[in-house]
């Protein structure tokens, strides 16, 4: 059923996508540049924000985007890129589902001579250009904040995303680097809540039963889970004893930081990533040189600087 719906959606998308560029073709040789975009998962809030930013940038610079949703399937993603190649798009933007499994998409585009820009996450194969942020850094910022608040001494628990996903692995790596630097910080328990708020509520409730009096901080690898942990801790009336930090700076988390409920989150710039990805793709399509890697830094969001982020609070992430 899913595939069936998708193919209908795809054919609609192509019906809309193929015919439009041919219209200006008739009038003159200056048709708008067409950029094929394959997104990891449009059911994800961060990716939705990324898509919005790309659409806005494309509109501004008169480009045409054909946006496909790979629905987390690298196989679909490769097929979508194959279709873009067959359509002879001018450039491709890939928001990879997986490090390894989405790599063939990059290889095929390069072999066909079409420039390809990876946005937000990496693939094993080197694309023409990459724009994103280093996930390790987000966890490093979060853990350093916790270490600072606890003066390097305390018991923490970590909520992981889907085990084995690039973001989970990298955020874990970043967190462990900081833990290694602070021998006084002890990892009491770690478990996956699969990026999911409801699962995080349940997990936190269970942790409060076992380790309730000992936990001094929670690091959740995304804000959805941080919000879930926060709800469970508030329900148990223990928020004054436990620091909660997430990553992504989704709207809810920004609001919670502003209201003094959540201690901190880490901002990743979806608008910046999406906008730059489209600019890079457009320049590559015009055969102009671009920088190979554009890194957009993360920023720690706490009560002190939260006002700066309230406006742009539409950028969460949970691959």
């Amino acid at each position, binding site marked *: *059923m*899913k595939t069936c*719906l998708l193919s209908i959606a795809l054919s609609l998308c192509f019906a809309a996508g193929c015919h439009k560029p041919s219209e200006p073709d008739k009038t003159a040789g200056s048709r708008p540049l067409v950029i094929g975009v394959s997104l990891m998962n*449009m*059911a*994800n*809030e961060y*990716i*939705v924000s990324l898509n919005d930013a790309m659409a806005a940038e494309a509109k501004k610079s008169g480009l045409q985007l054909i946006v496909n949703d790979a629905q987390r399937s690298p196989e679909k993603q490769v097929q979508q890129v194959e279709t873009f190649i067959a359509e002879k798009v001018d450039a491709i933007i890939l928001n990879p589902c997986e490090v390894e499994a989405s790599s063939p998409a990059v290889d095929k585009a390069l072999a066909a001579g079409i420039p390809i820009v990876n946005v937000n996450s990496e693939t094993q194969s080197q694309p023409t250009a990459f724009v994103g942020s280093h996930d390790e850094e987000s966890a490093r910022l979060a853990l350093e904040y916790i270490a600072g608040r606890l003066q390097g001494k305390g018991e923490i628990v970590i909520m*992981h995303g889907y*085990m084995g996903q690039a973001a989970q692995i990298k955020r874990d790596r970043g967190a462990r680097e900081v833990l290694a630097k602070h021998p006084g910080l002890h990892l009491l*328990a770690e*478990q*996956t809540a699969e990026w*999911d*708020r*409801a699962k995080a*509520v*349940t*997990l936190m*409730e*269970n*942790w409060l*039963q*076992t380790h309730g009096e000992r936990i001094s901080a929670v690091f959740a690898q995304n804000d*959805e889970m941080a*919000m*879930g942990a926060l*709800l469970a801790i508030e*329900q148990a009336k223990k928020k004054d004893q436990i620091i909660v930090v997430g990553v992504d700076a*989704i*709207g*809810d988390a920004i*609001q919670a930081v502003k209201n003094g409920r959540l201690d901190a989150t880490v901002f990743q710039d979806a608008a910046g990533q999406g906008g730059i990805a489209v600019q890079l793709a457009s320049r590559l399509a015009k055969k102009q040189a671009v920088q190979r890697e554009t890194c957009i830094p993360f920023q720690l969001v706490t009560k002190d600087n939260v006002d700066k982020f309230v406006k742009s609070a*539409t950028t969460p992430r949970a691959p």
Partner: protein
Amino acid sequence: MPCPPEPETTASLAAVVGGWLRRFGLVLALALIVAALGLAKPNFLTSSNLINVARQISINGILAVGVTLVLLTGGVDLSLGSLVALTGVIAASFAHPGDFFLVVPLFMGIAAGTACGAINGAVVTRGGVPPFIATLGMMTIARGLAQVLSGGRPVSNMNPDMTRIAGDVAGIPIPVVILACVALAAWAILANTRIGRHIYAVGGNENAARASGIHVCRVKMFAYTFCGGLAGLAGIVLAARIATGQPNAGIAYELDAIAAVVIGGTSLSGGVGSVGGTVLGALLMGVINNGLDLLDVSSYYQQIIKGMIIIGAVWFDRRNARGS
């Protein structure tokens, strides 16, 4: 707990024990697991943790009670998880502070669930589409609708009154009270009403039921609609619990609900089963979940252990049902 009353055995001790096991095999399995967890982790048997477990099973319990009726008719409902997301998003959209009275989001959530359930029922009965396919279609439609309505983003900024639905009253979590009411109502329907008896009859033998003048369509419509309504209720409870309407919530909840029903002794082919068993099944799954978290078992092993316990519990139950 197989539902049709067993003929009274007046024979040997073995037969008495066998009959007892047949009725209470699941209770015994649950007691064994609880005892084992209590020994392994003293925190498990504290009243605060037991209340915690009760709160955690309530959403799965509500869904499982609803799908019990559908499974009893010999059908299945795969759309539950998506309905939870859709109704949660709808309820949350009407639950911004100062917008409406609390009854509006509650009504909208339950109404949306009931409507989707009725569509499931109509597609199955009038359209003759197999339940697996009909509800699989609804599963993706409802998920898509939830994403369309929410724009793919969580619907937040919830009225605190709404989040109180997931809170406690006199130390007892309100979701647990809701589950208890739902289970009692479903039990009363199945045990004491004509439609309840007809549900068993349709699941037992559809042709015989039709021949004896039962409106099979009407019975099935009732089961799917009731199940959809309860999915709406579960969606509201979940939205209240996580203080948002999440378009991605509830993925695979239908499978947990069906597992609870089957662990509870309801036959996947219909006609045999009970709401009491379903609640026990949900409890068993909740206890395992909570116990494994308390024991800090790695999530990789948790999945393996949960799968084995689900199969083992049903195996144990069915062996005793067959044996003696």
